[in-house]
């Protein structure tokens, strides 16, 4: 009966309760939606990095990554790639030759990362082939084709069909140069990436650098499902012996950090909102206790013990908060679910975001656990808010309370 007394007490002063409930609902709604929004943004950023660049797992010689030392190549990379490809969870393996070097046009030059890829394999691992705004993805049988980002093309002042020269070191430390013709221009909506990456064919780059047949610096592997990355990583490690096998969280710790920081940030944000609401709830509950002094005195007089009086106030505060919280969670959750499939257009502010690798369109990403945790936080807030008012109620002396006219 304590539950129903507390619940009905919430609705005794409908207007006052409604005001605080609406405040809580709006606060929670804003908190849930913002969380889903930023989570969506971070997820998209990570997803994009994985899909256009990192992939899920990469294999290198242990010393390659320290200084991108081109002599640290995997000699029988083709065979290893084939064996990794046989692991059922693996949906694609691409072997890459990588060198950081200089690309120059007739007018100017720019530092770039050159990736030598096998187009068929690479497109199973990354989605760069879908990001072309001009030309095609190594479809023509031409000599020395190259695909560049739109931003680099702009910087070098080149266009489709233009020639650019890649100047690089071969395996014997000789400076060599090769002329490449632009057959495609991509736009990944990540400005920095689009300015500093070019793609050529695996065999063209290998020949230029005089690397041995079947060798590569990097194997990039895509796994069927995010959840399977860890176990697949272990399977690959057993195949590759002393090569370094790293997942995307290890390859790009800043991406993983982004993910975790976003979670933390979301909760801090929501806790700040709840903290502000806390004072509103305390105020309401104090008014409740004050105007019911006589009633509480009567209840204590007829034999309702302190624990029950305490519980009655705490429950009322929980019900009050939870009503607002549930409405807020439903509203915020509903809006967030809607924007999971309906994009939010940020292109008016797009420039800045895009240079940092964020999409101009955001789809929210709502985690069910967020809703559960927010609800729990609301309950905790309700309990905290009730402590002082409940203490006030208990300090009531029944004989004095009953004398109040």
């Amino acid at each position, binding site marked *: 009966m304590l539950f129903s007394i507390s619940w*009905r007490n919430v609705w005794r002063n409908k207007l006052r309760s409604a005001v605080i409930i609406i405040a809580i609902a709006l606060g929670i709604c804003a908190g849930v939606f913002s969380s889903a929004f930023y989570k969506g943004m971070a997820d998209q950023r990570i997803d994009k990095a994985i899909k256009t660049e990192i992939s899920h797992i990469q294999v290198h010689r242990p010393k390659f990554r320290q200084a991108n030392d081109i002599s640290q190549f995997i000699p029988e990379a083709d065979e290893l790639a084939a064996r990794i490809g046989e692991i059922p969870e693996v949906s694609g393996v691409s072997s890459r030759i990588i060198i950081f070097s200089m690309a120059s046009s007739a007018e100017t030059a720019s530092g770039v990362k050159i990736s030598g890829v096998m187009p068929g394999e690479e497109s199973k691992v990354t989605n760069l082939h879908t990001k072309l705004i001009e030309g095609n993805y190594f479809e023509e049988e031409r000599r020395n084709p190259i695909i560049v980002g739109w931003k680099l093309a702009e910087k070098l002042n080149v266009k489709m069909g233009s020639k650019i020269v890649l100047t690089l070191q071969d395996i014997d430390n000789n400076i060599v140069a090769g002329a490449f013709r632009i057959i495609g221009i991509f736009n990944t909506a990540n400005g920095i990436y689009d300015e500093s990456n070019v793609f050529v064919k695996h065999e063209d780059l290998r020949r230029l650098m005089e690397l041995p047949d079947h060798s590569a610096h990097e194997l990039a592997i895509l796994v069927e499902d995010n959840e399977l990355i860890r176990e697949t990583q272990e399977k690959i490690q057993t195949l590759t012996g002393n090569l370094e096998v790293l997942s995307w969280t290890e390859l790009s710790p800043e991406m993983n950090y982004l993910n975790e920081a976003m979670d933390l940030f979301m909760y801090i944000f929501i806790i700040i909102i709840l903290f502000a609401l806390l004072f509103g709830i305390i105020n309401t509950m104090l008014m409740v206790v004050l105007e019911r002094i006589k009633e509480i005195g*009567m*209840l204590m007089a007829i*034999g309702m013990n302190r624990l029950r009086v305490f519980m009655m106030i705490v429950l009322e505060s929980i019900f009050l908060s939870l009503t607002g919280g549930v409405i807020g969670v439903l509203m915020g959750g509903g809006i967030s679910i809607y924007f999971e499939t309906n994009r939010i257009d940020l292109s008016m502010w797009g420039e800045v975001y895009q240079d940092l690798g964020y999409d101009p369109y955001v789809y929210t990403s709502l985690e069910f656990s967020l809703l559960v945790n927010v609800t729990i936080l609301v309950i905790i807030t309700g309990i905290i808010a009730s402590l002082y008012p409940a203490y006030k109620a208990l300090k009531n002396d029944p004989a004095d309370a009953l*004398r109040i006219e």
Partner: protein
Amino acid sequence: MSVIEIKNLYKIYDGSEVEVRAVNGINLNIEEGEFTAIVGPSGSGKTTFLNLVGGLDKPTDGKVFVDGIDVWSLKSRKLIDFRLHNIGFVFQSYNLIPVLTAKENVEFIMQLQGWSRKDRIKRTGDLLKAVGLADRMDSRPAKLSGGQQQRVAVARALASKPKFVLADEPTANLDSKSTENLLDIMEKLNQEEKITFIFSTHDARVIKKARRVITIEDGRILKDETK
């Protein structure tokens, strides 16, 4: 043994200017089955006296025994339970929980005592019938007249099967018809169920119904008459 034994009871309020001897040395025994009125002018100490007897207000000196138990030797937590199980209270007003119906108000005290649902429902029905409110069981207090509310309060006071019922001016807010009605019900419960009632009043018609009338003035017993 008397249900209530009161020995040398004092309640002295130390005001800033004068001390008020609200109860000033009362000795009294109440037997089971009594129907007793405490009367006296305003400020004579009736409420204070009933609060001391009911375990609501701590005496400055003296003792109150209920069935041989020294009420004011109990720790405050025990005292609340003691009130719950031994004393029925009817106050002048604010007797009922506004958000509960008449039925729920009566049931509530039995729930505090830990009765089973079945027993609660049965006794609630019986008691509300006894106070003539069988047809208003599902009304909330706000929908009941003052007299009806006081009758629910009497039913609630009896629900816990107390050793006696203390009623501080139960009819003060009632019109004469409701007053008579409430007193008739109390009298009937006293005669048929042997419920011990102690009530304060300054209403002559109420005093007339009492079988024992204790008159107090300035915190002392002036007269103690049994009809």
